[in-house]
């Protein structure tokens, strides 16, 4: 296991941000920490990086107990939501920063022969990294002359330059617009396939997590709700919260189901089907969303393709029968459903 978090508790005054938190993150994987705002994702990441101290519990990184180590000695790369660029240094100098610190702590005099050797090595490595993040032609610019996406790629190169044991990203694309965001997350996935460093990134965008991550940790209120692969979380959510957070849900017959997992027909084919009338039909592109009012007074949302809707003969006011399809992910609905962020 690359990162082991055991029994971490973190309080801010009376407020408990993380409550006896445990998680194991395997080496070489890309893990997403997913959850609603204020759930404690950043706090966890900062504790792993050593930027904050936990009140109790331990963190170990690649088998080394890091609980008491300062951030400087943990060998983690950290990427911040708002880039945290060194404004007074060029792009190349930003990327070289960690390497220079490691080479001579900035203390060796400029004329020392060793320093010249270091210089050449560092320059090579910086060129490599700028190549990797496609910023080679911007090496001599100041960060203020880059776009947001470029700044974040530079920050990533800076973190990767020192070959950290793990790479931690706190909502790395949160400050970017939707399109750049989408490009960058695909790019991050490819980059990870190339570099293979253990990576943890925080997001509250479920689509981002489902698309990019090998594994997702769903965090809410300072606790783990579920850990698993994207497929597993989507298909077998552990509870109503996870189900609700990862996609649309609707409620039929006391069960939470995804709206596209409901079979709808004009005749009662299956035993246990729920009877209702179509109250509204809405066409959005290729899909049709039907709101069905059941006889027990439930309002059920059903999603189906246009072709399917036509085949069934759906129209407003007709009577229909609903059943969850076989193998659909369902979760028993609690009397008071928790809000899903």
């Amino acid at each position, binding site marked *: 296991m690359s990162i082991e978090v055991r029994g971490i508790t973190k309080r801010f005054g009376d407020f408990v941000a993380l409550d006896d938190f445990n998680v194991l993150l395997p080496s070489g994987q890309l893990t997403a920490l997913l959850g609603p705002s204020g759930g404690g994702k950043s706090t966890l990441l900062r504790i792993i990086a050593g930027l904050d101290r936990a009140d109790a519990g331990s963190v170990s990184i690649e088998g080394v107990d890091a609980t008491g180590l300062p951030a*400087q000695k*943990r060998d983690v790369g950290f990427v911040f939501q708002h880039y*945290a660029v060194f*404004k*007074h240094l060029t792009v190349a100098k930003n990327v070289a920063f960690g390497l220079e610190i490691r080479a001579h702590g900035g203390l060796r005099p400029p004329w020392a022969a060793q320093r010249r050797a270091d210089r050449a090595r560092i320059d090579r490595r910086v060129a490599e990294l700028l190549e990797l993040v496609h910023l080679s032609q911007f090496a001599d610019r100041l960060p203020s002359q880059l776009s947001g996406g470029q700044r974040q790629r530079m920050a990533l190169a800076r973190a990767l330059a020192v070959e950290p044991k793990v790479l931690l990203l706190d909502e790395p694309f949160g400050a970017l617009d939707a399109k750049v965001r989408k490009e960058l997350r695909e790019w991050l996935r490819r980059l990870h396939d190339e570099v293979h460093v253990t990576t943890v990134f925080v997001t509250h965008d479920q689509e981002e997590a489902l698309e990019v991550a090998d594994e997702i940790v769903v965090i809410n209120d300072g606790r783990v709700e579920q850990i698993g692969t994207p497929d597993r979380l989507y298909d077998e959510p552990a509870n109503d919260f996870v189900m609700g957070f990862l996609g649309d849900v609707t409620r039929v017959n006391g069960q939470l189901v995804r709206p596209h997992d409901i079979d709808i027909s004009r005749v009662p084919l299956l035993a246990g089907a729920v009877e209702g009338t179509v109250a509204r039909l809405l066409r959005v592109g290729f899909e049709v969303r039907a709101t069905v009012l059941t006889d027990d007074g439930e309002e059920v949302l059903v999603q189906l393709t246009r072709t399917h809707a036509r085949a069934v003969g759906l129209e407003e006011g007709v009577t229909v029968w609903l059943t969850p399809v076989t193998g659909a992910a369902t979760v028993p609905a609690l009397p008071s459903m928790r809000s899903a962020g």
Partner: protein
Amino acid sequence: MTSVLTAPAVEPPAASPRGRRRARRSPRSAPRSTLTRGSALGLGIAMVWFSLLVLIPLTAVVATAGEGGWDRYLSVLRNDQTWAAVTLTVGQALLVTALNVVVGTVIAWVLVRDRFWGKAALDVVIDVPFALPTIVAGLVLLSLYGPNSPLGVHWAFTEHAVTLALAFVTLPFVVRTVQPVLEELEVDVEEAAASLGARRGTILRRILLPSLAPAIAAGAALSFARAISEYGSLVLLSGNRPYETEVVSVRVLTFIENGNTASAAALASVMLAIALVVIVALDLVQRRVARRG
């Protein structure tokens, strides 16, 4: 030139590089006027007043000084007493500026990063030298460092008195330029450096100081300009003893009182030139920062 308009706030925060370049070029390539009739009248009246008050009088100083040509400057500066005043003023101004760079930065740091009881009071007291009449500043210092000093020191009429007076009136400059910059520094930048392995000393030296350097330089320039032109606070405190505590301003005043306006103008124009150099230096620093964004 420094100007109220080159403050970084003017730069649009997210301007594209192309947009910014265009914006910068526009004033040079035949600026079009957007004045209406009313605003043109306002500008006209304001300019007449500004000329009568500032431009023409300062021109008069330079013109009067120029009448005697270079010889006038040389003969004024060659005078031993004047030269002593110039070296004293410049030397003390440099000394006090260096003091401000160190202490002013420390005070700004303490005001932003430290927390203790009475910090708000400290913050207000820093501004006292800005608000206090200079003559009163001299009197105030005299009460602690003069003949009846409760400290038992007697620095009135010595070079120390000049240092004290200049340190008093220039204290706020570095503090007030560095403080807002320090407040605005993003904490995550320091954290980024730490996670890359930089220790406290390294972060201070390679991240914090370079970010503060332009502000420190700007504060230093302001405090130097003020120190070199100070007059009021020195009147009671330094005793204006020739060769010992007489500064350039006092020298200019003596020339004026003796009716020797030509020499006064020559010396005054040297001071104006120094002020101008400082302003230009300040503007260069500000522009570099604006570019950094």
